């Protein structure tokens, strides 16, 4: 494990263990502890990244650029969710203390996961993360959320079992689990079988077609800030991060033409199934869930080219997608709180009453579709460039066509929900409280700045591969 960054995962764990000792009527102290912990982590990491690595180019501060970037994304999404859920339902006295403890413990598990240099350590923290998310999904005690949690439980535990079988087969061949000692110098049959088990397990956890059956139900049925959390970071760190790590290990030894074809085909299926299914949905959260499947397919397409520019494109699109989906899901939570429904046939013309929500979701959806000068444009460009340069012309053209589909269904959603004439029953809804809008606006500003100042940000990404 990378030992110099370990305090980023121990501090949330200690804060989570202190919270149950606070008496139940002091709700403010619990919220203040949770928010301050994550806020301090993010200020620290933001300072490190922007001052040392983007402006001044010090290379000896930290050992790994990829880890620091993932830690920053985890803290950013965690901070947004904690701040949002502090002000989301103030009047109902729900089970707040264990909710904040669970979010802090899952942030700690994710930070330790990205710092591990070992297959088995990855497995332990991934199990801790999925146990936390079983409980977080059921936060509002309705039948929908219990059902979503049971579906998540039974459809993702085969992934854990497959990963354990793969790890034990890998141990037969090498005798150890380290990333540094396993050198894939010769791809014999046993390594191939074990790696295919492991990659299959992680594809199920990430929600890629043809294993995507749990994703729409879980995102639709869970408590609203928690579905933003799950779509924003949990399925990414729990699934796609390990696949990118394995691709980075394999590509430095020049292997994997069979694996590349298989992953390209899987990514291509995900992109198209997600895009086509998202156009016919009526519920806003379900449409966002299918759009998540589609964008994960883009990340797999980029990583499957096994080339340096492909890996940079995959990492950049991962971080971008975390920001887009957080903004979109938090906006849908605001809409649900103000109007009481998420059915897109009933919502109409909300722009007149909720201008800030409307404009931030326009920024997020233009960035997903890939319009310049936002950050989504650069990551889509890098993905299509990586596919073109490694010779897969068909997949590059298919990715371009699917990008048009993405623009289509998001514009349909925007027109239905936000533009148009306001019907009678929505005449007295108010804009969401200003505290609920602060995290959304901050993340939208990050999307804009990453896109506009891309030439400053890009050399940092090249250092990932070293």
């Amino acid at each position, binding site marked *: 494990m990378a030992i110099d960054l370990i305090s980023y995962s121990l501090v949330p764990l200690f804060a989570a263990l202190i919270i149950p000792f606070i008496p139940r009527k002091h709700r403010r102290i619990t919220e203040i502890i949770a928010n301050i912990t994550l806020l301090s982590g993010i200020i620290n990491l933001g300072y490190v990244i922007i001052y040392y690595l983007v402006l001044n180019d010090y290379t000896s501060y930290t050992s790994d650029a990829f880890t620091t970037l993932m830690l920053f994304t985890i803290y950013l999404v965690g901070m947004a969710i904690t701040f949002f859920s502090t002000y989301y339902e103030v009047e109902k006295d729900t089970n707040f203390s264990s909710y904040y403890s669970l979010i802090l413990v899952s942030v700690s598990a994710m930070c330790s996961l990205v710092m591990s240099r070992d297959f*088995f350590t990855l497995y*332990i923290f991934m*199990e801790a993360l999925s*146990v936390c998310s*079983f*409980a977080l999904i*059921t936060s509002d*005690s309705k*039948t*929908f959320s*219990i*059902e*979503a*949690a*049971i*579906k998540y*439980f*039974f459809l993702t*535990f085969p992934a854990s*079992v497959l990963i*354990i*079988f793969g790890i*034990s*087969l890998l*141990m*037969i061949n090498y*005798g*150890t689990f380290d990333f540094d000692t396993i050198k894939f110098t010769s791809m014999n049959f046993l390594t191939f079988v074990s790696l295919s088990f492991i990659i299959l397990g992680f594809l199920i956890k990430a929600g890629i077609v043809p294993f995507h*059956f749990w994703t*729409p*139900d879980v995102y*639709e*049925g869970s408590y609203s800030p928690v579905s933003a959390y799950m779509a924003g970071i949990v399925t990414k760190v729990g699934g796609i991060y390990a696949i990118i790590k394995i691709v980075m290990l394999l590509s430095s030894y020049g292997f994997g033409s069979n694996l590349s074809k298989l992953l390209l085909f899987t990514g291509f299926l995900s992109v198209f199934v997600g895009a086509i299914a998202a156009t016919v949905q009526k519920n806003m959260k379900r449409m966002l869930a299918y759009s998540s499947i589609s964008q994960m397919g883009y990340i797999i397409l980029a990583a499957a080219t096994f080339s340096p520019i492909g890996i940079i494109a995959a990492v950049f699109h991962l971080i971008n997608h975390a920001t887009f989906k957080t903004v979109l899901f938090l906006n849908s939570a605001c809409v649900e709180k103000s109007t009481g429904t998420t059915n897109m046939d009933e919502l109409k013309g909300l722009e007149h009453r909720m201008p800030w929500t409307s404009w931030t979701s326009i920024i997020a959806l233009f960035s997903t579709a890939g319009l310049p000068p936002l950050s989504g444009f650069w990551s889509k460009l890098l993905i299509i460039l990586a596919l073109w340069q490694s010779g897969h012309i068909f997949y590059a053209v298919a990715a371009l066509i699917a990008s048009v589909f993405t623009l289509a269904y998001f514009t349909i959603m925007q027109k239905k929900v936000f533009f148009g004439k306001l019907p009678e029953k929505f005449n007295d809804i108010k804009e969401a409280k200003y505290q609920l809008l602060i995290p959304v606006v901050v993340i939208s500003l990050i999307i804009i700045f990453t896109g506009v100042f891309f030439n400053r940000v890009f050399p940092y990404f090249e250092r990932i591969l070293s």
Partner: protein
Amino acid sequence: MNINFPLDWFFIAILFFTGAYCMIVSRNIIKLLIGFEIISKSATIAMITAGQATNNMALAQSVIIVMIMVEAIVIASGLALVVKSYRLNGSIDIKKLMNLKG
């Protein structure tokens, strides 16, 4: 010791089939959890055969201790979810959980 390796994996395959059959066929959620337990036991034996083949029993044992702990925690949280679902719905049949389509 080492002549048992194919025989071990034959029994691992049989146990895996048993657990998977239990998960596919039954309608009671607690029976599904019993199937999950049987599959986890077969994963434990898989790890022990790997440790035996490379003569690295200490690493295999530390891995198995953590795996048993993970399995106990996952089963505890699964049973908690089942009990809460029974309190809200009144039955533990998996065919009745069809509110969310798909």
